[in-house]
């Protein structure tokens, strides 16, 4: 997917909403990769799996620069999500600034269910070091 130019982002920019759901097979692959063994994930989705999917969508939509580092992450989980539950992810540019030559951006994510009720969200902060930001 073609991405938005990271340098051209401004605070308040909103990425297109995108659908998200995780199948049993996708959840199994995720927990096998992380190494977690928990019966809860036979019926529900690990909250960080949703976070990982939201970050993947972010990377699909925004063309991050070489050397971009994920520096901070916040999550708030408001309701347990079941396997195959249809969700929608909304991502907004919460901040985008240059500090001492480095580009720092924060992306706010909201995940809602089919009724529009929030099930979780988060905020990812990424930084492009000065040498990469200048290239």
């Amino acid at each position, binding site marked *: 997917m073609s991405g938005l130019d990271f340098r051209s982002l401004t605070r308040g920019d909103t990425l297109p909403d995108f659908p998200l759901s995780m199948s049993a097979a996708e959840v199994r*692959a995720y927990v096998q990769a992380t190494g*977690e063994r928990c019966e*809860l994930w036979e019926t529900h989705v*690990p909250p960080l799996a949703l*976070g990982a999917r939201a970050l*993947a969508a972010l990377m699909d939509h925004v063309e991050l620069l070489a050397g971009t580092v994920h520096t901070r*992450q916040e999550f708030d*989980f408001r*309701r*347990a999500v079941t396997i195959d539950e249809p969700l929608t992810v909304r991502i907004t540019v919460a901040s985008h600034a240059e500090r001492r030559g480095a580009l720092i951006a924060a992306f706010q994510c909201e995940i809602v269910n089919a009724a529009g009720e929030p099930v979780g969200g988060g905020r990812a902060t990424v930084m492009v070091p000065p040498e990469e930001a200048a290239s």
Partner: protein
Amino acid sequence: MSGGDVNAAAAAPPVAPVMREIDQPRVDAYAAAAPDQNPFHRETPEAAASQFGRPIAHGMLVLALVSEAMTAAHGLRWAATGTLKVRWRAPALPPLTVTARAEPRKVVDGVATYDVSCEDEAGVVLLNGTASVALGDA
């Protein structure tokens, strides 16, 4: 201590540490499952040319151990009411053994807050921050 505070060690369920080896096959599996195919996480020319000279594990893979520890202690309450706020402090260079810990800090108005961290086998802090979860029914 405010009126809503209670002794954290007495009121917050203990969270057992989670220890796990993170090697390149695990990182590759996570890259496929997350999905996050950033070349800096795989054995690619980009990873070799990076400042680390080799692949680094996904920060979210390391953070998943904190979530696993919180789930083991709190069950679905973690998925329904949990919060996480962390900062990555150092890269995780596979193979390494990561230990995730959550130490009770306080309980206020039925919400337990923990100091969380992940360290490698040498004690290097890979990430730290806080997690919270509502106590009682989700």
